[in-house]
């Protein structure tokens, strides 16, 4: 799986650029590149549903982020104890990655999933639902409550953003 490695290196590089570049617009574009890389990775991992989803969501969030932040100032200044804080963070990450490495040994090797529960989906999917796309069978029937949850989460975001966007929150006191 060379291609997935390459895509991941590309994503990490783009992510580092997004984090470190000074200009906010470039940063948002770089994060868009990470998202596109993710979409490609999903395609390589044989998840076309996810690739489509990631692509459209990425476009939407890019538009919104750019329109939201365009022509706003971005004062950058190095904080005190920069070296110490960064060092501490990096050490934390090193510990995290080492622990994760130990834990990863307990997982199965890449490309060889256990698929205990998923066998049931593959075996019964087309029979119990009318869907040939098993992912769609899962989201619209077997685990429909997840889909309800995502609908509700978006509904919450809609109502909430309408609420936060109110010009006047408190009524005038008289």
């Amino acid at each position, binding site marked *: *799986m060379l291609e997935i490695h390459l895509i*991941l290196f590309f*994503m*990490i590089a783009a*992510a*580092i650029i997004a*984090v470190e570049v000074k200009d*906010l617009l470039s*940063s*948002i574009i770089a*994060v868009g590149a990470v*998202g596109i890389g*993710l979409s490609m990775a999903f395609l390589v*991992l*044989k*998840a076309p*549903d*996810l690739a489509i*989803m990631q692509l459209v*969501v990425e476009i*939407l*969030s890019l538009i*919104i*982020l750019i329109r*939201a*932040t365009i022509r*706003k*100032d*971005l*004062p*950058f*200044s190095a904080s005190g104890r920069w070296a110490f804080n960064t060092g501490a*963070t990096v050490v934390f*990450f090193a510990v995290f*990655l080492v622990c*994760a*490495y130990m834990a*990863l040994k307990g997982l199965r*090797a*890449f*490309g*060889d*999933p256990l*698929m205990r529960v*998923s066998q049931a989906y*593959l075996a019964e999917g087309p029979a119990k639902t009318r869907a040939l796309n*098993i*992912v769609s069978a*899962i*989201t619209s029937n077997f*685990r429909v409550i*997840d889909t309800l*949850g*995502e609908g509700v989460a*978006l509904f*919450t*975001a809609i109502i*909430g*953003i309408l609420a*936060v966007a109110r010009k006047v929150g408190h009524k005038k006191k008289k």
Partner: protein
Amino acid sequence: MTIYLLCLALFSVGLYCVLRKRNIIKIIIGIGIMEYAVNLFFALIGYRAQGRSPIFAPDQAIRNMVDPLPQAVVLTSIVLGLSVTLMLVAVAIRIYERYGTFDITKITRLKG
């Protein structure tokens, strides 16, 4: 194995951004990167070598499909991530309106 570690390195880049950056748009970007990494991790776990995407064709039998469950899970997780991002952007715009800055160290009307 290395592939999982690379994915977790991406997660760390996002976390670094959240912990160390002062611009709130950068912090939102960092959270987005963390979500990307976790979604990718899920998808990696479900991958099967030489597998096919989990879509049956009407007339042929397909044996070695990749695991469909992580894909369904990531589908939901992407939406949850989008909702959180939209929420953060909305509040960030209002904060800019009220404080006139994106610098988190200057947004301190609440004292700890």
